[in-house]
């Protein structure tokens, strides 16, 4: 079984809303797969279906070779799940939650307590193990959540927005732990995120989802190279955007940008920046700020959807 996660034509409807609309996924063994998209794109809904927390409206899916609809109990034995916003009971201690999670996965007694100690050490929470989780920082809660998901040494790990709301240091620490898990144990990881950097840093392959549909899929570098030219972003008086766009059209195609900016995919790259500025200057269009960026995943997202990921609107589903 080379693909522990396989989904074909996955659909989930909530009344009239189609939250996930025909998603196909093939995640290879030992891969970190990034599922990138804005809030409401359908990432969490897809994860909830793959982890048996939500039934499928249509399509099929197998995890570790087991059908999520027909063999949900076995699927739950071989997956670890860290859900969005770390669902952790603040009244309990970290050690108590590990005990609870162990027993729920059929691990008891000394084995459970040794495993709990090992995981607490692994995620750097040994000193805080007997403190109530309500006193933990956001990063500590996320690390505990990760430890909880690893109690039974899962074959496939689902991380649903594992770093949302974390500070950069905590985010880095969690990334390192996920990488280590993947390197040392070959755990297959499906990670949902709305952070471009996270997908870029962690995932070997990504799928970009928007409006319940996968709009791009591949390796980050490959996707970025497909976008082609770098993006030139120019801050210009909004009253002169139309004039500027007309001038800039000779240097490359227009790209989505924030309201105060005009952006193009600059054909010929950095060598043509001076030429662009001169052209604008000749018509007295003042450029107050300028950036030239190599293609990013945000450009990939923009090229696929016509919107920037950071500004994408919420549409309802998780």
């Amino acid at each position: 079984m080379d693909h522990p996660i396989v989904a074909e034509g996955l659909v989930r409807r909530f009344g009239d809303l189609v939250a996930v609309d025909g998603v196909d996924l093939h995640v290879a063994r030992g891969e970190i797969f990034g599922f990138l998209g804005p809030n409401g794109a359908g990432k969490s809904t897809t994860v909830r279906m793959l982890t048996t927390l939500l039934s499928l409206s249509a399509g099929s899916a197998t995890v570790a070779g087991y059908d999520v609809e027909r063999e949900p109990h076995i699927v739950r034995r071989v997956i670890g799940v860290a859900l969005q916003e770390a669902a952790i009971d603040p009244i309990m201690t970290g050690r108590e939650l590990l005990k609870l999670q162990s027993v729920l996965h059929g691990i008891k007694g000394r084995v459970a307590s040794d495993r709990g100690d090992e995981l607490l050490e692994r995620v750097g929470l040994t000193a805080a193990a007997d403190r109530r989780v309500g006193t933990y920082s956001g990063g500590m809660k996320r690390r505990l959540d990760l430890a909880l998901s690893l109690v039974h040494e899962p074959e496939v790990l689902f991380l649903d927005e594992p770093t949302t709301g974390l500070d950069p240091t905590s985010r880095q620490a969690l990334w390192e732990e996920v990488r280590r898990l993947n390197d040392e144990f070959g755990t297959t990881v499906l990670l949902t995120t709305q952070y471009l950097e996270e997908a870029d840093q962690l995932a070997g392959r990504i799928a970009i989802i928007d409006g319940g549909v996968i709009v791009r899929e591949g390796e980050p570098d490959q996707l970025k190279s497909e976008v082609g030219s770098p993006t030139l972003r120019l801050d210009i008086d909004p009253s002169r955007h139309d004039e500027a766009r007309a001038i800039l059209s000779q240097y490359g195609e227009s790209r989505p940008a924030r309201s105060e900016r005009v952006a193009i995919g600059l054909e010929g790259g950095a060598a043509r920046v001076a030429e662009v500025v001169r052209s604008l200057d000749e018509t007295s269009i003042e450029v107050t700020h300028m950036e030239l960026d190599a293609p990013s995943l945000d450009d990939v997202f923009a090229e696929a959807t016509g919107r920037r990921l950071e500004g994408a609107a919420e549409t309802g589903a998780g």
Partner: protein
Amino acid sequence: MTVTIDTSGRGDAAFGFWSSARIVMWRGWVKTQRMPSIVVQSLFFPTFFLIVYSGLYDAVTDLPGFPTDDVTNWFLPFMLFQGAAFGGLGAGFGTAVDIDSGFFDRLLLMPGNRSAIMVGSVGYALLRSLFVAVVVAGVGVALGASPTDWAGVPLLALAVVAISIMGSLYSLALIYRVKDQRVAPLFPIGIFVLLFVSSAQVPLSVTTGWLNAAGRINPVTNLLRLGRQAFLDTGVTWEDTWGGLVAIVVCTALLGWWAERGLRHYNP
């Protein structure tokens, strides 16, 4: 360390059902110890009402055919029922909080039979109810309640346990369906109606009209008959026992089935 994961596909029941139920129950009890305030409602009201009723309604025993001359003996089983029922609702309240916080998803991700979650919640609520029952019984004895037939005491205990389980199953059935903490304030309404539209306050023989009719078909009336035998002059009789036992079996089975179906269909 290597943890062996069984993927043989053996039956759910074999996959740590009782240990899972016990750990869910243990969690509830740990939380109760750390937040004792969550038992205050189920403890305060029956204790308070027992004290007030014992002081206020002494004359009610003068009614013709009233089966005891001690008003505390009359009201103590009722208050034990009230404490048990509200203690039982703790299962639903706790689950509502877990659903709201997302913790319930963690429980649903257990590989074994998910009914263990329900059984564990009921067990935890039963512990709460028994704690309340011991305190309320202690207050009742201090106020002068005294069993007239000790053979009725196990029957009263059985009824208290059954009421707690029924309260749990009722609240769980509702929360599994509604899946929203906002339904929780509605839990006590059904309990209040069932407890008060029965022979809880006075014998059915002194009620009239719709109250009498509703009291006759209310299973709580049979449970009160069963439970009160320990404290009434008539003592334990089969006539007052069998109806309560039937009510326990039928109501527990129906509510259990309702809650189980709710849990099974939790993920639409």
